[in-house]
């Protein structure tokens, strides 16, 4: 494989992994601190993308709409948490799975009723619609490069937030041992709402950024949700660092699978089969990876629980 191809595929996998990280980070915090399986996390991603598209249409500017969309989705998340999800913390996982599954159905329909069943338009901001020249003579989509930049920035900010600030310390304490944190006087309710809202904002960021590349459509959350769960299981529930490493790992396997395997298979199988086998195999590999981690190191690569 040529150097250019390798570089481009690496950048692609980085871009994908970082976006996955945005989703996984929120999910792992919710799961780690509140011990809640939230299947509706993907719905927040979808809502974020739809709100972004709507706000871009209303304000005419991508950069104005972005922070608004984040705040709006965070509010939606907080509202959801306070009204509904709070009652689920004490319930068993099965109940949480089912209740949040129901929320997925409701959210999908609500979005469909408001915006219609076809996907809606979200375009990259003017100025980022073309390529940039990279050292080495290769061109790469400037928008994707921007996404990578944002992803890295957010990762650093989160890392700083969680490890160096007091709020972050509370979060880590809650993830590590909730009862003890409560016993120490942490206002656990407000912390939970804040964590949930943060997770929602991260989802919205991923949805808003990926919208121009993918499509803003009903049900867009389900596909990526399952990958996010795989990531946090591999990385360790409750751990931001684990979510980061896990996302990059999954992004790598997925992109390389979509890119490398078909080339390898093209030599052995007819094109239709080879093109099908590659992505299927890489998907299987992601799940094999997760099963292996669960088997050998069930707490994940970077367990948060003390």
């Amino acid at each position, binding site marked *: 494989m040529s150097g250019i191809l390798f570089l481009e595929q690496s950048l692609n996998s980085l*871009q*994908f992994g970082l976006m996955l990280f945005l989703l996984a980070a929120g999910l792992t915090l919710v799961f780690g601190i509140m011990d809640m399986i939230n299947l509706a996390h993907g719905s927040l991603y979808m809502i974020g993308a739809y709100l972004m598209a709507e706000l871009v249409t209303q304000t005419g500017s991508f950069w104005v709409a972005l922070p608004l969309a984040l705040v709006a989705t965070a509010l939606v998340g907080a509202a959801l948490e306070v009204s509904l999800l709070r009652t689920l913390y004490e319930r068993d996982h099965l109940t949480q799975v089912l209740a949040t599954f129901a929320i997925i159905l409701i959210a999908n329909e609500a979005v469909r009723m408001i915006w219609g069943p*076809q996907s809606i338009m979200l375009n*990259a901001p003017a100025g980022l619609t073309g390529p940039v020249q990279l050292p080495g003579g290769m061109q790469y989509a400037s928008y994707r490069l921007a996404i990578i930049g944002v992803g890295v920035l957010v990762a650093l900010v989160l890392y700083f937030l969680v490890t160096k600030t007091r709020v972050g310390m509370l979060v880590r304490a809650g993830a590590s041992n909730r009862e003890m944190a409560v016993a120490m006087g942490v206002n656990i309710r407000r912390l939970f709402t804040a964590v949930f809202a943060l997770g929602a904002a991260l989802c919205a960021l991923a949805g808003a950024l990926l919208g121009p590349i993918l499509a803003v459509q009903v049900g867009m959350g389900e596909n990526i949700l399952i990958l996010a769960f795989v990531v946090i299981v591999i990385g360790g529930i409750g751990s931001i660092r684990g979510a980061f490493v896990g996302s990059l790992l999954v992004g790598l396997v997925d992109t390389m699978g979509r890119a490398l395997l078909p080339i390898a298979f093209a030599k052995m199988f007819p094109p239709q089969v080879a093109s099908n086998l590659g992505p299927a195999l890489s998907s299987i590999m992601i799940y094999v990876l997760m099963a292996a981690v669960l088997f050998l190191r069930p707490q994940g690569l970077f367990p948060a629980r003390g």
Partner: protein
Amino acid sequence: MRMIWAAAAAAFAVNAQAANELKIGYLSTLSGPAGAIGVEVRDGFNLAVKMAGNKLGGLPTEVIFADDTLNPEMGKQLAERLLKRDRVNLMTGVIFSNVMLAAWPTIQEGKVFYIAPNSTPTRITGEGCNPYFVSASWPNEGHHEAAGHYAKSKGYKSMYLIAPNYPAGKDATTGFKRGFGGTISAEVYTKLNQLDYSAELAQIRAAKPAALYAFLPGGMGINFIKQFVAGGLSAEVPLVVPGFAADQDIIRAVGEPMLGIFDTSHWAYDLDNDANRKFVAAFEKEYKRIPSLFAEQGYTTALLIDAAVRSAKGRIEDVPAFHKALMAAPGRMKSPRGDFKMAHNGTPVQDYYLRVVAKDSQGRLVNKKIGTVVSGLGDFWAKDCKMK
């Protein structure tokens, strides 16, 4: 007791009375990124029905819509419901070939005629041909074979092919290869409804092909072309596409980057005939947007049904009579695409034009006809059809 019911039903069937109303089961993809195509076809179809006073062929017409969401299993179930519960006496609407092939056995069992406004898989028109299936659009390979002819005329040394991995995608590459006749440097299939083409585009960049042929309809096309341009490939690699990947649904989404793209199609916005002028004017008035080739397909489908039902005097349950009427219908109607004939396997034989995306006198982005790529192109696989 069951015997009595069966005898009664048989007696009723023998009587084969003319239907006194048309209940059309319209199974289509109306949601998701691919849904835009379904909406275009539907709008064209509805326009024709409306212009005929809600009476196709003189019969009061009811159209029952069902959304398969590009899910073959759902398509099959909905077909069953339309046939058995809603008792439709005609079916149409399917956009995607994987849904078509999944639903086809059910439709066949239902013993109603299916008029295809879009997907016309070679698996149904070749060896598997059947009087109940008549297409008002084109044989699946049509546009691609024409594009192959065009690529050959441009003298490209080799072609890199990309299409989604489903029956119509395979038909696309097969048809193109036949029309082009030259070297194929690569044949890549993507997942149906895939949205992120970063991996495929990286491969294309590395392969440095002489030219690229991409069949990616609907939402897939929108994303592919946007990413193709964003990655800087539009400056490096000449792109040839079938009409499906360059019409209004994509132009509206992508905009100016589409200027200059060449595509092949069985219809063009500025075709010089009365029926087309009437169609375009009516469509723009009704829907406030420029029609695409998909809209023309839906419109012509309704016209075909109208002409056939009229000449068969409503006897749509009389299989040989209605089939004959459908075969002769193109000669009894004026379609926006111009004159066309029906081959014996139920697929249109028509001309394919070369179009380019350009601005019209009002500054809007449209697909202008430049010339004719191939005339009277039919379905290659009609030769395998053993019907009369």
